[in-house]
């Protein structure tokens, strides 16, 4: 069996050595399980041959990009072969005149954007991990980012895909055009499917012209409700800011106590940005935003338009993850998303849950699209804290669903949220999802054990 795999990818692109498999047992979540082997294919044909082989012998295969997932999506819970696509990292085509880029799945997000920037273009979704995340991984998790409210998520840019199906056929789906209603939109079925339906080997992405200017503002509030109002009033004002971030008081206190960033005692901080192709456009939008921020009783407002001052205003937001990662030895970072007007309810609710269980939860995130990141801080070596953390997480999920929200805005379900799928999806929908999975993957070899699909 091993010989067969080595014949496909070559000895240097295969491992079954325990020590090499240990790092493949993890991602950025708390899930752990060993794979049996790992391969680094260099061509779509090799991926296809491995999948055909795995399907014949019913061996699980788990496609993997940078492994930055926060939900256990790439943890091989049933063992099997990790198919690491990092070596398939060629940018195949940048077609400015037709507004698309065609890349292999392993191309790193920022590497693509560096090439696009030379032409004044960008692939807008910007997950925090964009220095390492792969386009294939971004597509598989429908990655979002800070600019989601204005520029959407990866799904909005996927024009076409090349996919190795679980049964080993190679499929090209979608189009190179800005519009297409030709047949079912199969490409979108694979977006956010977390590698459960096939292995994406090539992606055709719509690209946008890169905005030339941006202006930044930061406002702090003593009342969470005021911050919440400022957010949804802005989002319905006719102006859509390119950034609309919120940080709650636990996050702010943690940053204040652990860095030298001066911060007022506030319940919430909003960081917002407007962008565009001329300064007039940027300033006119910012004027509207600032008026709303001011009308809602802020403690203070700061603005910046040159790069240095802007980076200074971004410092607090950029410090959030790092500071919180330092104050506890373990954390779970979730991504519940609610309709925009429900953000204050979600923030207040999370704090109530946190206090009731005696587990610290710091929340920040993309308020402009209702996507928040509660970061639950705990000690993984304290069984009681682990138990309470699970309770907190479940209650946050229940709260988000009760507010007409969703379990996951941009991280995916993976293993961490699989048990909660039925909170959001009714029996009919769950059954249809399972039927789709079974139709495409009759032997359940493609990233099995995820999303409560098997």
């Amino acid at each position, binding site marked *: 069996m091993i010989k067969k795999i080595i014949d496909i990818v070559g000895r240097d692109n295969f491992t079954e050595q325990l*020590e090499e498999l240990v790092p493949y047992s993890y991602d950025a979540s708390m899930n752990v399980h060993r794979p049996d082997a790992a391969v680094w294919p260099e061509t779509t044909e090799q991926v296809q041959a491995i999948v055909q082989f795995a399907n014949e012998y019913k061996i699980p295969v788990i496609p993997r990009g940078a492994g930055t997932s926060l939900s256990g999506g790439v943890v091989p819970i049933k063992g099997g072969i990790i198919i690491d696509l990092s070596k398939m990292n060629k940018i195949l085509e940048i077609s400015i005149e037709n507004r698309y880029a065609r890349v292999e799945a392993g191309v790193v997000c920022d590497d693509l954007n560096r090439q696009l920037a030379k032409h004044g273009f960008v692939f807008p979704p910007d997950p925090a991990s964009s220095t390492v995340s792969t386009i294939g991984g971004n597509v598989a998790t429908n990655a979002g980012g800070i600019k989601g409210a204005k520029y959407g998520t990866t799904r909005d840019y996927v024009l076409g895909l090349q996919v190795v199906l679980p049964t080993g056929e190679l499929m090209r789906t979608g189009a190179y055009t800005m519009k297409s209603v030709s047949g079912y939109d199969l490409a979108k079925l694979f977006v956010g499917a977390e590698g459960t339906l096939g292995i994406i080997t090539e992606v055709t992405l719509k690209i946008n012209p890169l905005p030339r200017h941006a202006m930044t503002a930061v406002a702090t509030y003593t009342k969470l409700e005021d911050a919440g109002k400022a957010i949804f009033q802005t989002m319905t004002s006719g102006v859509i800011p390119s950034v609309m971030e919120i940080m709650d008081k636990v996050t702010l206190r943690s940053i204040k106590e652990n860095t030298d960033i001066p911060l007022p005692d506030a319940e919430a901080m909003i960081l917002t940005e407007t962008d565009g192709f001329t300064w007039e456009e940027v300033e006119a939008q910012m004027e509207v935003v600032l008026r709303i921020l001011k009308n809602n009783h802020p403690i203070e407002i700061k603005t910046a338009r040159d790069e240095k001052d802007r980076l200074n205003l971004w410092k607090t937001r950029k410090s959030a993850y790092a500071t919180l990662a330092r104050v506890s030895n373990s954390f779970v970072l979730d991504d519940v998303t609610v309709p925009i007007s429900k953000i204050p309810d979600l923030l207040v609710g999370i704090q109530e849950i946190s206090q009731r269980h005696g587990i610290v939860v710091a929340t920040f995130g993309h308020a402009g699209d209702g996507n928040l990141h509660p970061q639950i801080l705990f000690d*993984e070596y304290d069984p009681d804290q682990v138990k309470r953390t699970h309770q907190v997480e479940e209650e946050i999920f229940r709260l988000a669903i009760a507010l007409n929200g969703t379990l996951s805005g941009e991280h995916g379900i993976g293993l961490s949220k699989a048990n909660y799928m039925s909170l959001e999806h009714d029996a009919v929908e769950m059954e249809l999802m399972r039927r789709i999975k079974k139709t495409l993957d009759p032997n359940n070899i493609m990233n099995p054990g995820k999303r409560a699909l098997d």
Partner: protein
Amino acid sequence: MPTQLQFDEKHRKAITQCSRCGFCRAVCPIFDLTKRPITNARGKMILLKEVMEGKLPLSEEVAKAFLRCTTCMNCTTNCPSGVDPQEMVKEMRKQMVGAGFDNLFKAMGETVEKYGNIYGETEHHDWGHKKGKAPIVLFLGCVGAYREEENIRETLELLDVLKVDYTLIDEVCCSGVLEDVGYQIKEDLVKRNIEALQKTGAQTLMATCPYCYRVFKDHPAYKELGMRIKHITQFLKEFDFSVQTDKRVTYHDPCDLGRHAGIYDEPREIIRKIAPNFVEPRRTRENAMCCGAGGGFRGAFAKESVKIARNRLNQIIEDTGAEVLLTECPSCVHNFRNAKRQKQQIEIYNLTEFLAKLYQEKKEVSSSKAVA
């Protein structure tokens, strides 16, 4: 049977603090080459986590994984969770040696002890320069003295042109590299250097090699000498140079000089005086990618090391279109020169060496004028 590793509070904290975000993938030179997760900091922190939790036995393969690190410190600089993986790597290399997993640098330690240099060279250059009393001692280091001799010759000549009163000593290896690969500095070698240094009556100990510079800065015996410890770029930045180049020049920050010693500005101050057409690489200063030579990596994995240098060199050429690549570390220069392809036009020098060449060119021009 080897014993398990010992994890003190600090190391336990570092291991649990790694949030496995994987951001180190973007900066690890070995991962960049291999794409194997075991080679980057996250992979190594995960191995340690499992060893600490008793899930993974300490093995030859684990020890080998920890040798595969250039200790370039780029992961430390870029870790959002504040972990210092290269410090862990150095500590664990020592512990693994202590636990019975000796590595190939054991032999290097023996060589250094016997010959006073890392290469086991028995013939020592007499550089034609005085060894005696002077206000400044110039320390050459093994890589320069035995592998980049031309470079050293040029440096000595430069100091002569600049009329610097300095002396050399019969130096032996600083043996600092042993600290990074699982062993200890050889104290008897330190003693020999100290004795030789004392005889010079110098107030300043100047190193060309950033690695030696760090050893002198950190090791108590050198500190107790009471000499000012300077890297040659810190010394030269005070000078005005009567030479210039029109060539497009760029600079590679050596990890040992930059991230490890914090010396970024001095080389640039010198370059700006002599090269108006200076351009920074995209990945530079704190974010400069490693040349692949450090932390014993070239010694242990020569082929991969030179491939990393090739990647870095290609990257620099692509970013800058420079005609001259300057750096100030004998190991970086050595690795880049080995990596350079025939067809690549770029010239590679240590800054001091390049300065000396400019002075030579000037001299040739003026003497040919005189003849004419």
